[in-house]
């Protein structure tokens, strides 16, 4: 498979560290002198640009989070005069003000570069037809994919999101080979193709680049089977740049982070300490080349772990595991940190059940209780109480081992627990604090 920028993507990791260190020092200097917010925060911590001599000093700098962006709405964190900004995107906040991001001409070039890498990672090239079914507009998905697609010389079809019948028509008439959209829309499209009795041989799709929302391995298998494509997970967030922060390669064994532009750290969301490679924790990014909106130690709230082990594709860029949860979802039960994704992972590994579950946390006599409701799958239901009890005990033991926490498992009837592709309601916390 072709690699877009072998110089950086396959760089020796020691050389890469030098590049990262130089770029970090420049970023810190620019942020310090051009953004009062960063200068104040660094001064309060007794730090100046001279405090940062290499990437190893990064941990000394204070964190930034979404609230800081909101507090400085709209342009307060920009590090260049507005005359240098050529594009503004914004993400709608569910509460309050949107998060605004600005790009210089150079930032747009960087974004196109990392999106070109992403598409090459997914095996796309100049002979492909890329159907971009991400929304175009203030959301970064559509235009991000668009610029990357043009950069690699593919034929970009900017359909934007929605209008399923037109998506299907163009897919068939133009012979789209690459589909870019959210994974839940990919599933929706797959079902629409079936419902409309579209002959699969009329569809030329061979790969999908899906992101902008968390999705499970089970969803991936479903999409791959129904659309008969390879489903590649891509990761990004508008604050950092948009899509293009990280992407799976064809090996599908973690997402390569473009760490010559975006430096990742994993921290414990509670203690805020940096965790060693391989630990599960919250992903934090520092932009290394961004001009418009440099971000220093930006807390993504996404949970993952990193590995710098060499990938079979030849890229040396560090890989992150598929994100399945957010630190916002973290529950503390009897003092133990618990993420719904941990429960999901245990259930996914058990063939007897489907990972449809609900966590119920309560406090009885001043003691936290955790109940995990799991749906009984028809394939495994034979009519014996002893067998259901054994299954219940097995789930309970597996969960207790994985969570290091006492759990009560309850078997429930199927389809009782809510289905939702994007933001599923998996937790009920009845505790009153």
């Amino acid at each position, binding site marked *: 498979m072709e690699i877009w920028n072998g110089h950086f993507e396959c760089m020796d990791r020691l050389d890469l560290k030098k590049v990262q260190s130089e770029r970090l020092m420049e970023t810190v200097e620019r942020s310090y002198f051009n953004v009062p917010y960063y200068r104040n925060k660094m001064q309060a911590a007794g730090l100046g640009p001279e405090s940062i001599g290499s990437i190893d000093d990064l941990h000394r700098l204070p964190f930034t989070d979404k609230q800081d962006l909101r507090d400085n709405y709209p342009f307060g964190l920009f590090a260049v005069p507005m005359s240098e900004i050529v594009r503004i995107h914004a993400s709608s906040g569910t509460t309050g003000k949107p998060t605004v991001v600005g790009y210089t001409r150079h930032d747009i070039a960087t974004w196109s570069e990392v999106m070109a890498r992403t598409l090459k990672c997914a095996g796309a090239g100049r002979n492909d037809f890329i159907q971009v079914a991400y929304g175009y507009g203030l959301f970064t998905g559509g235009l991000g994919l668009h610029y990357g697609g043009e950069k690699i010389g593919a034929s970009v079809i900017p359909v934007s999101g929605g209008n399923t019948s037109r998506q299907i028509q163009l897919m068939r008439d133009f012979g789209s080979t690459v589909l870019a959209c959210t994974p839940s829309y990919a599933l929706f499209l797959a079902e629409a193709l079936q419902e409309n009795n579209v002959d699969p041989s009329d569809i030329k799709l061979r790969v999908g680049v899906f992101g902008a929302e968390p999705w499970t391995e089970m969803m991936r298998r479903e999409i791959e089977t129904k659309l008969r494509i390879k489903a590649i997970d891509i990761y990004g967030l508008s604050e950092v740049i948009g899509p293009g922060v990280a992407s799976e390669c064809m090996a599908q064994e973690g997402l390569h982070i473009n760490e010559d532009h975006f430096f990742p750290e994993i921290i414990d969301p509670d203690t805020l300490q940096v965790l060693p490679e391989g630990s599960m924790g919250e992903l934090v990014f520092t932009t290394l080349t961004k001009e418009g909106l440099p971000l220093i130690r930006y807390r993504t709230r996404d949970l993952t772990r990193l590995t710098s082990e060499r990938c079979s594709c030849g890229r040396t860029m560090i890989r992150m595991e598929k994100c399945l949860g957010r630190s916002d979802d973290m529950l503390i039960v009897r003092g133990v940190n618990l993420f719904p994704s941990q429960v999901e992972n245990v259930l996914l590994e058990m063939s007897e059940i489907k990972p449809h579950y609900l966590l119920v946390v309560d406090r009885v006599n001043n003691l936290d209780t955790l109940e995990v409701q799991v749906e*009984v*799958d*028809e394939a495994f*239901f*034979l*009519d*014996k*109480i002893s067998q*259901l*009890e054994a299954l219940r005990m097995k789930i309970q033991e597996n969960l207790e081992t994985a969570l290091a926490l006492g759990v009560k498992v*309850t*078997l*429930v*009837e*199927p*389809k*009782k627990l809510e289905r939702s592709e994007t933001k599923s309601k998996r937790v009920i916390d009845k505790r009153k604090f």
Partner: protein
Amino acid sequence: MVIPQLSVFIENRSGRLTEVLEVLGREDIKITALTVADTSEFGILRLIVSDSEKARDVLKDQSFTVNITNVISVIAPNEARHYARLLRILSDRDISIEYTYAFARGSKAVIILRCNNNDEAIKALKENEMELLNASELFKI
């Protein structure tokens, strides 16, 4: 000689059994036997009905977890010693009973059995001249 029996997974909460029976009632399904095995949280409702496949399909449509299992039915006088004898015949052949339930009509009792090996059980019962019922005979009771 085996009889199809419907097994339905139900949570132990009020109204659930009613819902199952209402679904079956709308389809005019007749019930010959019914029993519930339960723990504190869930139960298995076992039913012998006039059309088990149709019953299964309509319950599935309503999102119930349903399965059909084969059971054996024996008719005998409603005296404890007959039930005891039946169990003895099976245990003498090392056939274990997963569950059993019974109902009586007049002086006759119908015993439903689910064994670890139904074929062996049928053979043993026949050899000992126990009276087995097939599905249509059971429905005429």
